[in-house]
């Protein structure tokens, strides 16, 4: 049972968190291009698609902590320090995603749709802030992944 739960947990992490990380890191670059060329509808639809990938796969990402918790319970490691640290970092990443990253993407898309928006109205500042948040988000996932593999202080094997 533990093997099934762990497999689904890892599969969900690869399939859900992976696309969000990649699409979120591509978003600021294409958003900046879309602001530089407001008439280019092709780039705008790329930005919209990247946002959609982030939104949809963030929701599906709920399955990662759900199966992670079930795996931890069935292994009896829920109170291990490395796991609690991972849970806290995951929670921080999730809050960052829902409360900062996705709303910033939505705001950028909305102001792209406003035809009156001119490139000098401060949107590049939002984009560079989004770049920072996105980088932080990816960094958190990298740390959590390493914690999941290294499991410092764990006694359940290499």
């Amino acid at each position, binding site marked *: 049972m533990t093997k099934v739960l762990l497999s689904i947990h890892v599969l969900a992490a690869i399939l859900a968190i992976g696309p969000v990380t990649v699409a979120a890191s591509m978003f600021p670059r294409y958003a900046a291009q879309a602001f530089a060329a407001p008439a280019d509808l092709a780039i705008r639809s790329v930005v919209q698609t990247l946002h959609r990938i982030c939104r*949809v796969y963030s*929701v599906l990402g*709920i399955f990662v902590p*759900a199966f992670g918790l*079930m795996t931890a319970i069935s292994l009896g490691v829920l109170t291990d320090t490395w796991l609690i640290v991972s849970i806290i970092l995951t929670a921080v990443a999730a809050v960052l995603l829902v409360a900062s990253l996705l709303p910033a993407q939505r705001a950028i898309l909305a102001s792209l749709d406003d035809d009156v928006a001119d490139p000098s109205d401060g949107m590049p500042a939002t984009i560079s802030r989004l770049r920072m948040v996105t980088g932080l988000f990816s960094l958190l996932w990298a740390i959590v992944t390493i914690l999941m593999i290294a499991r410092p202080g764990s006694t359940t094997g290499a």
Partner: protein
Amino acid sequence: MPRPETALRIASIAEIVTLAILLTNLFTIHARPISSSMGMIHGCTYLLVICCVLLIERTPIRIKALAWIPIVGGILAVRALARARDDAA
């Protein structure tokens, strides 16, 4: 990938069916493999219902809240969405 509305309908039925299997098992043979596998699947359908409702665009917050109700949340959300569509039409 199916549309979230279709997935919601399937998940909301599965949420109830898996619970029915769980309860039947509990009061009859109480086989452990059925409990553990169906328990997991029932939990999944619960999460899936919430996912689907969050993925349907421009859903009122009231319907989003309905999906979080255990067991009947999916069915209630399907009905509420249908009613919202009828009102809009």
